[in-house]
């Protein structure tokens, strides 16, 4: 049963992470474009640092770092009269009421907490990637469009929201669809973050079962479970490819790009 639910977990993660990281990326790109220098450094720094660090190390690092950060903040708020140092040798000690989640809370809260940490980590990492794509896309909207907007007397803000943002998507789409493919393929890493996802269940259920522990004894089936996962991902990739192709077609409509031009000629 858990095996089937875990497919839902993966899909839910994708559904939640995609918009969240897109908005992270949007803010990152907006900050990087800002005319106020420190804000632009912040945006560019965020994009550069996250992109530069090797892959899964980031995931491993962020989950613990976020967890400890949250606990540390709660600790400073809830237990101000705690005198012992927090790092005691190799232990990280906070007072009981600052434990996240609380020791007393039911199992599902622990799971939800773990899941949201995972989503946040994914969003931070993929937000940087999306930010880079959107930043490039904003810069590739033809300069003339903005100049026209300014000639019509639009303010900087109006030109950004009414002219730049609607037009940038077609330029961002190739990068974003690539990112979506990468995101799909990153989901098995949930397993590393301690969420009971499909990899976890494939290992658990596939392992040798003897008649003593279960009603359905079988040998080592993990190979077949992982084959099923492989096929699941392949199918998912294929479906995404088809859908993204449709979106591209739709977005190129009426754009001054090669794709849009081809559509105009065909019509």
């Amino acid at each position, binding site marked *: 049963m858990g095996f089937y639910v875990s497919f839902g977990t993966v899909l839910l993660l994708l559904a939640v992470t995609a918009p969240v990281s897109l908005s992270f990326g949007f803010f990152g790109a907006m900050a990087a474009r800002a005319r106020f220098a420190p804000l632009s450094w912040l945006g560019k720094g965020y994009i550069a640092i996250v992109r*530069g660090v090797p892959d899964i190390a980031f995931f*491993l690092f962020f989950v613990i770092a976020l967890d400890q950060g949250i606990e540390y903040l709660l600790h400073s708020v809830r237990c101000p009269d705690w005198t012992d140092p927090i790092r005691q040798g190799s232990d990280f000690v906070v007072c009981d009421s600052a434990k996240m989640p609380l020791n007393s809370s039911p199992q599902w809260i622990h799971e939800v907490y773990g899941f949201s940490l995972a989503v946040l980590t994914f969003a931070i990492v993929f937000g940087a990637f999306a930010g880079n794509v959107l930043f490039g896309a904003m810069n590739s909207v033809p300069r003339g469009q903005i100049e026209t907007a300014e000639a019509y007397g639009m303010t900087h803000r109006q030109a950004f929201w009414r002219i730049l943002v609607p037009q940038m998507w077609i330029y961002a789409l190739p990068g974003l669809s690539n990112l979506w493919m990468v995101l799909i*393929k990153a989901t098995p*890493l949930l397993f590393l973050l301690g969420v009971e996802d499909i*990899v976890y269940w494939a290992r658990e259920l596939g392992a040798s079962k003897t008649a003593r522990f279960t009603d359905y004894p079988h040998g*080592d089936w*993990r190979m077949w479970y992982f084959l099923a996962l492989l096929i699941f991902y*392949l199918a998912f990739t294929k479906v995404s490819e088809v859908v993204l192709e449709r979106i591209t077609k739709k977005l190129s409509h009426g754009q001054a790009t090669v794709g849009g031009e081809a559509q105009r000629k065909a019509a």
Partner: protein
Amino acid sequence: MSCWQTLQDYAFRSLGYGERLLPRNDFTLCEQFVLIGSGMIWNVYFGVLAVITGFFFANLLAVAKLSGNRWARKPAEWFIFIFRGSPLFIQFFFAYFLFLNLKSVSPIFDPFSAAWLGALIVLFLNTAAYSGEIFHGALLSIPRGDMEAADAYGFSGWKKFRKITWPTMMRLAWPAYTNEAIFLFHATTLVYFSGFPAWRQQGDALYYARYFADKTFNPFIPYPILAFYFILLTLVIIKVFGLVNTYLNRHLPQANRRKIRLRPNLIR
């Protein structure tokens, strides 16, 4: 214990030489640096061998994918689709358990379930698929004029491919291929995370970094060390591939040479 002593004890720990026990408490910065660096030996081993062997197979795949013969084209297309369409992580798991099952069929397969061979095969196939796609794209974007010029000079068949098509393809594909190589080196960290066990605690850099992070509950030291090593490794790769790039473009005027633009990627 001095740092020099630590270096002697642990510099080749990942290969099984030196001190057998990993440090258990009072971890010094030096120990972390040396052990994680020792693990990098495996990352370099996997990366270098997979890139070199994968390169040849990728060329074959790219040509096969472009060929008019469907018996050559279809298998290449499927191969590339399967390895690019599924997560490397799952591929590792699947391969490991596949080799485990094969082990009971014949003892020939014994070494395959060990990381040094089994994981190398997966990485080899994986990078071949990714680079094959890059080379295929490059083949498609060879300027038509080059081909026409080759025809005009009377080149044909193998000679045309060897003298004109292939060098041009390499030139076009090289910047993307550099990124693929960097990406592959980063992907080597997945090996000991999937099914493949670290025999006698001889793991790669991430294995040791995680060991320290687990023991100390402090991710802020081992992971930045790991990142440091990887940035160093990436710089070396860029340097080496940059040299090849200059060699490939040696006939062009200096200013026209295409610079390699670094585009690090995430998880495959």
